[in-house]
């Protein structure tokens, strides 16, 4: 029979694929060879463009080729400029002449707009190419970068179109972080209102909430849209309440998906920005010197202006020496003419704090702000937090070992009243060490932080403050975070086990420093 159907065997198919592969490799090498030669010869022409297209369409991740294309585009643009310069702008007389014949006039106007249009067409061509490449690999760093480079070069870039493109790509894959990143860039350029962006983001979360990128996108939009006046929460309390509600719904729908829980932690946090300036944590002053602790590491304290105001004088503190490697605690060995009767205040850049005099007959003054300050919260928000906590507790009845629920209920308790719920939240952490033993160290560290936060918050009420700091021997502590806060004390008493563990790396005290100097 003629032309009878016969199916290729897998063996034959494999053989054929192999040959095809070899052919592709050969043509790739040949094309790359040609491109190199042309580049050496400085031939940045149309042939170069078409050669690179062939390869980029199959593999959009060859950075060199994108660089060559950029060179080609720049070359073409500079040629256009030259052309433009040599092109004679028609004088009025000439225009008059040309008006007589309509045809010629058309030609003239055509010529006039040509260079700009030409440039635009180069850019469009590059944009089309990146679009095709992104279909091949939607996560190609090179293609995304080339796209933004082209848009920046093009004075007629259509940013609105880019936003639509992002919509389209995010419909295909709502979790592509490249697209989200690019989206932030183009929405800013296209001046898309933040509220509209937030709606878009909400829609994407509705489709699939297991999406770190869209939660992150939210966290960038919300503080600007719903600012918090007190600056102790990431956004206004009304909005925060709604966000908490939404994120807990996601977390309860699928507790194993971590993206929602992470967002919730951000919501329950203070909204502090990573790049914010350090704040004064503790300060103590005597006639012969001073110590300063910052709430976060800041290795280059000289960039911050530190001034002591009091006794009708302003002293610039500028000879700071580090007390630890991180740059959280510092000493200054300047001499001050300390006046017991005057009140002093300390400036750190734009932060100003009032110092309290040392008790008794001692000369000197101090300042102390515990790491976990008491944050106030509105009735409505408090009610929401309590509802959420109740939901978590309900859930724990069904699933006592649910890791994220245990952690979240501890966080919620702390957000409601961190000192009253301190013991209970530690119990949750102890349980977490068992049910999620792979992250044992993390929970121990968290427990240590919470314990210190609690101890430090209570410290100002203790009799020996600020000269002695005590942690009862029965308190379980694996490490000593917030050590820099203790720099204003003369004597520190720690649980014996922790003391043993720390060995020589005990935090420095004010008394130590006096002795040393």
């Amino acid at each position, binding site marked *: 029979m003629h032309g009878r159907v016969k199916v290729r*065997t897998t063996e*034959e198919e494999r053989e054929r694929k192999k040959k095809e592969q070899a052919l592709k490799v050969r043509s790739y090498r040949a*094309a790359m*060879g*040609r491109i190199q030669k042309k580049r050496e010869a400085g031939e940045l022409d149309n042939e170069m463009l078409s050669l690179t297209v062939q390869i980029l*369409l199959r593999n959009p991740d060859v950075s060199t080729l994108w660089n060559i294309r950029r060179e080609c585009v720049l070359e073409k643009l500079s040629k256009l400029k030259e052309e433009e310069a040599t092109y004679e702008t028609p004088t009025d007389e000439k225009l008059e002449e040309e008006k007589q014949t309509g045809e010629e006039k058309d030609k003239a106007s055509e010529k006039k707009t040509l260079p700009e249009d030409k440039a635009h067409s180069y850019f469009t061509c590059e944009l089309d190419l990146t679009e095709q490449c992104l279909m091949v690999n939607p996560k190609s760093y090179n293609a995304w970068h080339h796209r933004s480079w082209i848009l920046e070069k093009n004075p007629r870039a259509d940013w609105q179109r880019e936003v639509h493109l992002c919509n389209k790509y995010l419909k295909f894959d709502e979790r592509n972080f490249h697209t989200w990143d690019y989206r932030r860039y183009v929405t800013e350029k296209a001046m898309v209102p933040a509220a509209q962006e937030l709606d878009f983001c909400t829609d994407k979360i*509705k489709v699939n909430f297991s999406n770190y990128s869209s939660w992150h996108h939210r966290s960038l939009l919300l503080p600007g849209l719903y600012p918090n006046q007190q600056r102790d929460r990431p956004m206004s309390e009304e909005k925060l309440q709604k966000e908490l509600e939404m994120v807990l719904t996601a977390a309860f729908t699928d507790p194993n998906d971590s993206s929602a829980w992470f967002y919730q932690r951000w919501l329950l946090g203070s909204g502090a920005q990573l790049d914010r300036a350090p704040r004064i944590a503790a300060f103590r002053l005597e006639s012969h010197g001073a110590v300063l602790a910052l709430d976060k590491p800041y290795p280059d304290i000289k960039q911050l202006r530190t001034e002591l105001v009091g006794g009708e004088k302003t002293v610039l503190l500028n000879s700071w020496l580090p007390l630890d490697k991180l740059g959280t605690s510092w000493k200054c060995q300047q001499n001050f003419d300390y006046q017991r009767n005057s009140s002093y205040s300390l400036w750190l850049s734009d932060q100003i704090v009032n110092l309290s005099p040392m008790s008794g007959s001692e000369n000197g003054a101090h300042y102390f702000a515990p790491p976990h300050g008491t944050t106030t919260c509105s009735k409505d928000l408090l009610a929401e937090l309590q509802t959420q906590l109740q939901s978590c507790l309900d859930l724990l009845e069904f699933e006592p070992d649910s890791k994220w629920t245990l952690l979240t209920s501890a966080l919620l308790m702390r957000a409601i009243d961190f000192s009253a719920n301190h013991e209970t939240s530690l119990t949750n952490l102890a349980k977490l060490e068992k049910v999620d033993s792979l992250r044992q160290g993390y929970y121990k560290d968290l427990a240590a932080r919470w314990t210190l936060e609690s101890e430090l918050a209570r410290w100002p009420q203790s009799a020996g403050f600020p000269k002695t700091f005590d942690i009862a021997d029965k308190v379980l502590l694996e490490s000593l975070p917030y050590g820099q806060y203790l720099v204003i004390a003369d004597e520190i008493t720690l649980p014996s086990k922790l003391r043993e563990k720390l060995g020589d790396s005990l935090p420095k005290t004010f008394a130590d420093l006096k002795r040393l100097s």
Partner: protein
Amino acid sequence: MSDDLPEQFDLVVIGTGFTESCIAAAASRVGKSVLHLDSNEYYGDVWSSFSMDALCARFDQKTEPHSSLRNAKYTWHTTESESEGDAPTWNRDSVLAKSRRFSLDLCPRILYAAGELVQLLIKSNICRYAEFRAVDHVCMRHNGEIVSVPCSRSDVFNTKTLTIVEKRLLMKFLTACNDYGEDKCNEDSLEFRGRTFLEYLQAQRVTEKISSCVMQAIAMCGPTTSFEEGMQRTQRFLGSLGRYGNTPFLFPMYGCGELPQCFCRLCAVYGGIYCLKRPVDDIALDSNSNEFLLSSAGKTLRAKNVVSAPGYPPVSKGIELKPHISRGLFISSSPLGNEELNKGGGGVNLLRLLDDAGAREAFLIQLSHYTGACPEGLYIFHLTTPALSEDPASDLAVFTSHLFDQSDAQIIFSSYFTIAAQSSKSPAAEHIYYTDPPTYELDYDAAIANARDIFGKLFPEADFLPRAPDPEEIVVDGEDPSALNEHSLPEDLRAQLHDMQQATQEMDIQD
């Protein structure tokens, strides 16, 4: 009728319904010579879809004693021409004017996205002949209202009808069902073996609302369904989630009548011969050759095997039919349920209905114009229930009263009919394989099992519908099958190959 049909076949299939077409395709695919006949002038038999005109004409036809479609009645609920106000209103004339835009199924079905049929279509590569639309909502009746059942994770997240703890319970319950039967099987569930699914559900401390979601729409159970059966049904539902669209279901574009035709097409590609409008008058067994002699249109055909749809050949052989499925088919100018269920002009919605006692059930499938089965602005409601009597309207009354009496659905056309099934086999039919009539089921599982079973008996050694190759995998005789044909390369690669050869010469590169 002059024809040059061959006279000898491995298999003659009578009737182009779903099951018959499936067998015909399978036989043809493994190289058997197949003749496929149908006395109707259309494909699909009772599995077919009709235009509006054709359906009415079919309903008007006199019912033959052996005809499996019967008790058909239809009514137009509008006056012939009625135009008041600015809004165009639908009436008989305007609907009939768009007759060809309809695909009205006698046996509508919904496919599980990972169900038997979908798997078969993919495995056999028949899927390239068909298109589908994902079902938009799976619904249930709750407190007299039609509500959407949250099926996917994002549905559960977005629904406002469940509290967050309920959401957790529902998700947890579904996850437990999904894991059931695997090694990590929950020990608590073992004690429910032999008890009912409802008992298990109640033991999970789920709320009433979750319980109805699961019983009515997800597991599609009744109060007496066993634990194992309920688990299996739930797993079937869950296993089909997340494949296409938001629900676990698909509906064939342009109606279910497309599906038998897809199989016929594969049969024809492998050499099967088709004759519509070709009744078979008599079948006899030639005891010498052990072959069947079929007389059709004055011609005698010889076949080693015969497969027939129920009701063929004529009933004179003593075949009796009894009612099997009661059907209602309605056309409305408004969809069922609220706005939320019909966003963007409505889609395909599936609703399983129960009578007040929970003893009888029916499926309602709502189709919008997105399925290509009706014109824009109109909706088809297909109602299907197992038959109790020869009166489909009374069989369905309990469901229609729930659905239409309290709603403001604007019904324009309503019709009722019965699909009948053979009650006993004729004596002469012993060697003929009769396919089963359409079973009352959502998907095609029973029909496929039936086709597979008959095919296995006919050709015990052969593979049932192995994958059909794509055109580019086929080699023509005399070709070296492992050769790389330059013409089969993509165009730009071919151009590049030429460039490359040129470059190699110019640059004097050795391979």
